């Protein structure tokens, strides 16, 4: 526990130094390029414990409190400026230069995320092999000839390695009548089918956009055993028990889970009598509870009738999910690493989608769809950081990238005191040609500061409260 806390704190500080360092470096390098004199570039804030003056006259420093950092530029508002140095001073620069300097920090954070994701893709990320599951008999995939557990190897002329490839390739065929899909069956034989996609398109509201075609990615290997019973469901109210192995339903033999699914698809709303084998688990059993071990237990034959319940969408539900075969499920997933060139568009897409997700989340938070107690603060972040590192470097890179984008976008919010607030002042200046008066700016910054502190207090107390 104590070790874990030390790990979390250490990882958190490393993350902060990387993220804030890069952010400030964005301000720093742009300021220099714009000809503004930088007095100090500090990692951390508060009292300085180490500093060196560079050849450019700038002080490079480490400060005591490693929770941030700053770039101090020559500025008439913050101290006396010698007359000969006036042209290197920040406040009298043309407004576009000031805008560039302020905007560079958040943009560098987003750029940093791109590089972090790039390294992540080079190292490899978890991917799903394109095994087909949930093939529905009345939909195009079944009609074409696709069956459960087929492995998709090619779509048109494109070889596919994981499910993401399948999605991207299929989407490119939208608008055509059909697309040739080559699959490898369980026995190793390959066949090519014409999948009818006439009229199919991607519905944004439905994440399972393959559903209209009648097949889905296989996420795990189901067994015919009951692995989960939903609370207050039809199954829970019946005599069906967890770990019962389904042998047949209403006399129809069930050889795999999909036999059961297709039976209830064909007979919606009908009472189902399950013939099950109920394992007799020894009282002193201490095994890992894998599918194989369950098969070894002796069992008693039972017959259980369940009446499905109609849900709000008009579907009949039993409220059971299959027990997964952990060993075989592992074969479905693999680590996919990308080549140097391949990884570039991947990282770009990932960067874009995280940016979009961040913006959407902020909007949902503002319009009240996400409750206040979901805000988490530095403690939750530290814990996640430590946890992600313990899973693997690639996860840590991904986590760091996401936080970096969060930092960048949050900083672009039009709240005075944040970079976005300054950008707002400069935009005002560009439009009206007048600077925002210092008094008004001071007051606005205090309000922004106040709101920020309020949010931070909530975040930290939430962390403490919900832990």
């Amino acid at each position: 526990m104590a070790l874990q806390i030390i790990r979390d704190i250490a990882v958190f500080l490393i993350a902060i130094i990387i993220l804030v360092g890069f952010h400030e470096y964005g301000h720093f390098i742009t300021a220099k390029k714009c000809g503004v004199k930088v007095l100090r570039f500090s990692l951390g804030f508060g009292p300085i414990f180490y500093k060196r003056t560079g050849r450019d006259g700038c002080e490079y420093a480490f400060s005591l409190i490693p929770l941030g950092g700053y770039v101090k530029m020559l500025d008439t508002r913050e101290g006396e400026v010698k007359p000969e140095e006036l042209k290197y001073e920040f406040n009298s620069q043309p407004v576009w230069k000031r805008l560039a300097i302020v905007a560079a920090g958040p943009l560098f954070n987003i750029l940093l995320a791109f590089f972090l994701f790039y390294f992540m893709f080079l190292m490899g990320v978890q991917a799903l092999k394109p095994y087909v599951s949930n093939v529905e008999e009345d939909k195009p995939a079944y009609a074409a000839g696709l069956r459960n557990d087929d492995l998709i190897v090619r779509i048109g002329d494109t070889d596919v390695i994981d499910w993401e490839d399948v999605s991207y390739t299929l989407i490119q065929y939208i608008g055509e009548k059909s697309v040739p899909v080559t699959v490898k069956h369980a026995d190793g034989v390959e066949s090519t089918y014409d999948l009818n996609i006439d009229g199919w398109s991607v519905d944004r509201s439905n994440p399972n956009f393959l559903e209209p075609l009648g097949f889905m990615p296989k996420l795990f290997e189901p067994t015919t055993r009951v692995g989960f019973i939903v609370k207050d469901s039809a199954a829970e109210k019946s005599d069906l028990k967890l770990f019962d192995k389904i042998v047949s339903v209403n006399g129809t033999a069930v050889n795999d889970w999909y036999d059961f699914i297709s039976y209830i698809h064909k007979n919606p709303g009908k009472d189902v009598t399950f013939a099950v084998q109920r394992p007799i688990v020894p009282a002193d059993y201490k095994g890992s509870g894998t599918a194989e071990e369950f098969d070894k237990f002796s069992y008693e034959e039972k017959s259980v009738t369940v009446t499905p319940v109609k849900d709000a969408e008009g579907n009949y539900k039993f409220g059971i999910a299959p027990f997964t075969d952990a060993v075989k499920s592992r074969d479905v997933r693999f680590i996919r690493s990308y080549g140097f060139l391949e990884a570039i568009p991947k990282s770009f897409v990932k960067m874009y989608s995280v940016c979009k997700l961040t913006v959407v989340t902020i909007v949902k938070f503002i319009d009240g769809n996400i409750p206040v107690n979901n805000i988490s603060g530095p403690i939750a972040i530290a814990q996640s950081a430590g946890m992600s590192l313990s899973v693997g470097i690639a996860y840590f890179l991904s986590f760091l990238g996401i936080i970096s984008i969060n930092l960048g976008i949050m900083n672009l919010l039009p709240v005075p005191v944040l970079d976005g607030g300054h950008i707002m002042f400069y935009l005002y200046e560009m439009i009206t040609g007048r600077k925002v008066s210092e008094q008004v700016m001071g007051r606005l910054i205090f309000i922004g500061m106040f709101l920020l502190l309020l949010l931070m207090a909530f975040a930290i107390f939430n962390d403490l409260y919900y832990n």
Partner: protein
Amino acid sequence: MKQRIITACWLIPLAVMWMFYLPHVAFVAGAMILVMLGAHEWGKFVFSKNIDIYSLIIALLGALSCWFFNPFAGDLPQTIGRNEVAVGILGMGVSWWIIAVFLVFKYPKIQANRFLNAVFGITTLIPFFWSLVYLHEAQNPQNLLPFNSGSFNLFFVMLLVWCADSGAYFVGRAAGRHHMIPAVSPNKTVEGLLGGIVLSLSVAFALSFFMKDGINFVNVSVAVVIAVIASVLGDLAESMFKRIAGIKDSSNLLPGHGGVLDRVDSLTAALPVYAFIMYLFN
């Protein structure tokens, strides 16, 4: 400015913890401490030196109203006469603020004597204390908030007051022509007051928007406008008492912000008035 921010850095988390994360009993204890600090400062207005017997009297009266009100009762059945005492104490606050309008406008021609000023401390602070307790414990489904919780109830009024303050500042700066009461506060303008009301109303409506059930926009508007006007009155009254006593800040307890009373002056009027209106609407 720097001092102001440093103080805010510890004051805000403290206030958030007090309002949102403490159980009601601890909240009441905190409110009592706040009011006693306020009373300590009021003692200086009235007697020009620290007289803590005065804060003791306030504390005793606060405790007494606790005894009547039993804020610790929580979900227990309501004490008999509880609502009557509630409306009594809040009503006392409202009546005092009506008198305060008269005093503020007539300053410096008409000034109350020392004894009355001491009484005004009680009529300011006890209803203030009780409105804190009342709003914090309220679980009215009919309140103006998207959240069915007393903490947010309280936060809502505070937010209104800050909005009114900021709105008044910016509008007053940009378009302020007509001074309200230059003898008491040279910076307050009628235009600023209107700006504050507009901003508070907008924020209140924006928040009401999130409510699932329909809300009564007339009720919201009435409560918000009166609470905002009361907040300005609270501010003016404190300025007046400080002028009478010849001091600038009520104390230096909160470096960069002045004293406790300086920070809560608008709330001492806005909260009891708002709570009273809520009581009437329910």
